[in-house]
């Protein structure tokens, strides 16, 4: 499969074959990295990380992935220190940065910004989050984590919990899971239910979907519980936020009726939706999930740069 020069903008652009291919390459890179310690596939290549909006995990994990591939990194982590402050257009910023680099990773507060950047740039652009729209590399690392933990995705029952209305992570994940034979429990307060059009799309694709507000009722059915933070910054109305803040907390008491093999995931950062007492249990998969970001992003960087021959 030829990925050289390809942009990674939205889960909507992927086929199931694309997803499976990236997960396979990521697994091979993880094994090779464990054996050799470091790799040099991207030696001499430069990644530009353009973070117009703050991020800890995503930026560091992309940087770590590029370093582990033997490449180097330039970039910024806030728009405040760039020419954007002087009124430069996004297109001009991208056309400038591509003169210095071989691949661009970008996070931007506006929806669609990564798509625009990809249209302007000659080099590959990887979307690291565009407003409340897409965060495709998070979805791929979520799928990778599930696959590594269970050896498969087909046949699993997966619960998505929290802010299913505004949360871009759960929207993209649900869309990608629709490629697989899974059953989904959508668990949220009434006010934060998954948008109807996404549920319709899932059902059209043959996914068995249950909507509920009852976390404890759903828990015994689940193989994976994917927890998300209720994000204050995504709410247009503070009152609406206050009504749903702290609706759910996953703790050991909530998990007492869970399958022994249940895995709890979270894209992090968490606030209080998973109690730290869960961290030490066999259920906790969220730090492993953070680790998955590196091999998956190594695969995407290597593939789009076209440097992974033989992997």
């Amino acid at each position, binding site marked *: 499969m030829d990925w050289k020069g390809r942009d990674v903008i939205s889960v909507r652009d992927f086929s199931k074959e694309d997803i499976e291919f990236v997960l396979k390459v990521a697994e091979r890179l993880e094994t090779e990295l464990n054996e050799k310690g470091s790799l040099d596939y991207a030696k001499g290549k430069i990644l530009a990380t353009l973070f117009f909006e703050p991020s800890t995990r995503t930026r560091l994990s992309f940087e770590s992935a590029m370093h582990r591939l033997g490449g180097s990194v330039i970039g910024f982590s806030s728009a405040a220190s760039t020419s954007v402050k002087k009124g430069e257009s996004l297109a001009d910023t991208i056309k400038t940065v591509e003169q210095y680099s071989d691949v661009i990773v970008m996070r931007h*507060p506006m*929806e*669609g910004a990564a*798509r625009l950047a990809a249209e302007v740039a000659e080099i590959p652009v990887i979307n690291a989050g565009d*407003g409340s729209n897409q965060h495709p590399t998070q979805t791929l690392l979520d799928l990778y984590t599930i696959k590594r933990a269970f050896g498969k995705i087909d046949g699993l029952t997966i619960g998505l919990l929290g802010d299913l209305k505004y949360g871009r992570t759960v929207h993209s994940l649900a869309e990608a899971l629709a490629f697989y034979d899974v059953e989904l429990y959508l668990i949220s307060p009434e006010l934060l239910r998954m948008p109807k*059009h996404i549920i319709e799309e899932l059902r059209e694709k043959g996914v068995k979907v249950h909507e509920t507000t009852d976390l404890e009722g759903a828990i015994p059915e689940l193989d994976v519980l994917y927890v998300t933070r209720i994000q204050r910054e995504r709410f247009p109305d503070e009152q609406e936020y206050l009504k749903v803040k702290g609706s759910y907390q996953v703790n050991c008491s909530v998990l007492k009726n869970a399958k022994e093999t249940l895995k709890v995931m979270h894209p992090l950062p968490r606030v209080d939706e998973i109690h730290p007492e869960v961290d030490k249990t066999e259920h906790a998969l969220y730090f492993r999930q953070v680790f998955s970001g590196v091999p998956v992003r190594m695969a995407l960087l290597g593939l789009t740069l076209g440097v992974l021959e033989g992997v």
Partner: protein
Amino acid sequence: MAELKVTAIKEGTVIDHIPAGKGLKVIEILRLNRPNGGVLLLASNVHSGKLGRKDIVKVEGRFLSEEEVNKIALIAPTATVNIVRDYKVSEKFKVEVPDEITGILRCANPNCVSNHEYTVSKFYVVSREPLKVRCHYCERTMEGDEILRNL
């Protein structure tokens, strides 16, 4: 019925069955009112058996293609197009919503990059009945009145 008080054209295009009040918007979208263009006629609030009232646009000297005319499908889905040569209708077709709508619709999402940076707006038609479109940039969907408000 009173005789239609609009001159017939010799060579050009007649767009009929436009919903009443949308004629000017049709002219604007198709850019028919160019300074050096041919004669342009707009008849508004014409009696129509099908629509009750309708608008008609006639443009002399221009033969609009199906592709061009499909741009008006969003505001005038009922429109029919007649290509006139030597005072006779030589071709007739109905407008159809195209698969992609470029340049005429604005995204309703205030945080969409297309409302802040220089871009040509682009939407994909997700469904025709009811009409639903998805923004190429922010991927949000719009339907019904929201589409009309953003034309």
